[in-house]
């Protein structure tokens, strides 16, 4: 068991290592570097040389990679290009803001998704299922920036219930953020909830059709007792992994939503750093976002392992 966990963690680190190689070499291979973008038209002769010297770009690529990777391992991402600030100082408050947004969306989204998924599965093809399923299909297919724009138009402009855009500074405290994040949270959790509800629905339907549930029905087990004791535990386990993958996939959507609402999180930093071609920040963001993805997957794997005794023995035999 412990060996298996260690193996999973090691695999995660290998993935992150490859990600760092990809982003580093991607930035190397693509035309233009930090100095040519920083100096723009004056990028020739002595000025260019001096810039290379100052940013340490005149050393071979592999040496730069090693010193950069060593810094990252110690939690130091180096200096950003545009502001010439330490990247850690730029990232810190942004990470916090995005975490507040993401965790609020997940905390609201998961219970609603479970509820909707179970309702639609138990009342399959009846009226509640048809209504909820149609709504979920709409909210999972429509891009985040459309649902976010519509939310602003309807709730903030026409009804005037909530502020449409977030106007707090980057370093705002959580209590300052909270009233502002209601609309962004609704926009993000809408699409997430829809995806998860659909998976929970098909998972519950599969278990309902299984032999042991049929047996329980024939034995005369009361309907709700059967649902809670036999169906749900078996149906929700496989859903954990899929839910984790969905959350990770939605990271891209968070970027767009943050831009729509002008929210000072990681997503807006992605757009800003790419517009400024601030490559050191882009590299740091790639590593951070990839590690979030990898750790969500890892947690999901470990949770499935711990909650499912069958899987445990199966893996050890292997």
């Amino acid at each position, binding site marked *: 068991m412990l060996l298996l966990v260690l193996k999973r963690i090691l695999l995660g680190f290998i993935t992150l290592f490859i990600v760092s190689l990809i982003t580093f070499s991607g930035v190397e291979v693509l035309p233009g570097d930090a100095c040519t973008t920083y100096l723009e038209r004056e990028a020739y002769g002595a000025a260019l040389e001096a810039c290379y010297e100052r940013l340490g770009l005149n050393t071979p690529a592999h040496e730069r990679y090693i010193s950069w990777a060593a810094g990252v391992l110690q939690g130091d991402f180096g200096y950003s290009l545009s502001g010439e600030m330490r990247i850690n100082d730029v990232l810190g408050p942004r990470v916090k803001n995005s975490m507040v947004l993401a965790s609020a969306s997940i905390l609201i989204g998961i219970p609603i998704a479970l509820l909707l998924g179970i309702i639609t599965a138990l009342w399959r093809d009846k009226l509640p299922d048809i209504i909820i399923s149609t709504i979920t299909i709409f909210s999972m297919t429509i891009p985040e920036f459309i649902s976010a724009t519509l939310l602003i138009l309807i709730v903030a402009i026409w009804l005037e219930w909530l502020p449409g855009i977030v106007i707090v500074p980057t370093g705002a405290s959580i209590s300052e953020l909270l009233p502002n994040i209601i609309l962004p949270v609704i926009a993000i959790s809408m699409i997430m909830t829809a995806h998860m509800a659909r998976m929970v629905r098909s998972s519950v339907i599969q278990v309902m059709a299984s032999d042991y549930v049929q047996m329980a029905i024939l034995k005369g087990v009361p309907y709700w007792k059967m649902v809670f004791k036999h169906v749900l535990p078996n149906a929700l386990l496989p859903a954990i992994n899929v839910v984790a993958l969905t959350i990770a996939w939605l990271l*891209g959507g968070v970027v767009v939503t943050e831009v729509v609402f002008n929210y000072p999180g990681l997503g807006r930093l992605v757009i800003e750093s790419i517009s400024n071609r601030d490559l050191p920040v882009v590299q740091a963001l790639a590593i951070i*976002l990839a590690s979030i993805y990898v750790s969500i997957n890892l947690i999901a794997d470990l949770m499935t392992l711990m909650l499912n005794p069958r899987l445990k023995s199966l893996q050890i035999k292997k």
Partner: protein
Amino acid sequence: MTLEKEQKKNNLQKVYEVIKTMASKPSGLIGLSILLFHVILAITSPLYVPYDYKAIDPSLMLQAPSSEYWFGTDSLGRDVFTRTILGGRTALTVTFFGSLIALLWGGALGIFCGLVGGKIDDVVMRIIDAFLSIPWILAMLLIVSLLGTTTLVLIPALGFFYGKGIVRVARAATHDVIAKDFIVSARARGHSNLSIIWNEILPNVRDAIMVEGAMRWSWMLLGFSSLSFLGFGVSPPTPDWGLMISNARGLMSFAYWAVLAPIFGLSSLIIGINLTADAFAKALGIDRSTKAPV
């Protein structure tokens, strides 16, 4: 010769039957009709647009919908109706060819990995996993901002990034058939690897890969329009729904029509493609509903 003809006829019949099954359910019929409508609109719209899509006229700024300007005008006095019916052309072309590229390279690499297995397979899948863990938006933005936003960059870039998920599906499907008797007997008959791939494996994994490709088309459209919305996609004054929404968003408290028209266009196309892909999967008997959207 006759055998070949019969084969062709069979294939056509199969396509016809799949479309018939898709259209037999209301959701599939709706999806197919929306998609067909958008494709016809995209091909024919330049023939009957009422106004010039790039004609700027300050005296016509932000006019409300009227009999003259059906969907009103935008902040530069351009006709919103004209721009809306032209707005799907780039999106449809780029994402259609992008999905084709994704399908081809993803399918080919997946089948290859499933077939050879071993060390090569391990290494390739690790790299694919690493690519999967970089959020698509970051990778796309980086490529587009360094290489430019022409369609010639967007199509291969989107095709590459949306193909990596297909690799996994094609590999898994190949794994499912590789141990079957007919492959073993084909090997025993002395068929070459290429002939085995073409005649034995491909017919068996084709459905799964095509369904995956159809699904990816709708995600790619979502990704492409998000890029345009963020200002990293199509460049103005080309009419494009994502770009139109992002331009009209700032003034939507005065001129909601300039936002709602492209929103309607884009949402209906994405829903159309999605319903079609769903119906396609069901018609081929493939259940995707328990899979994560990766």
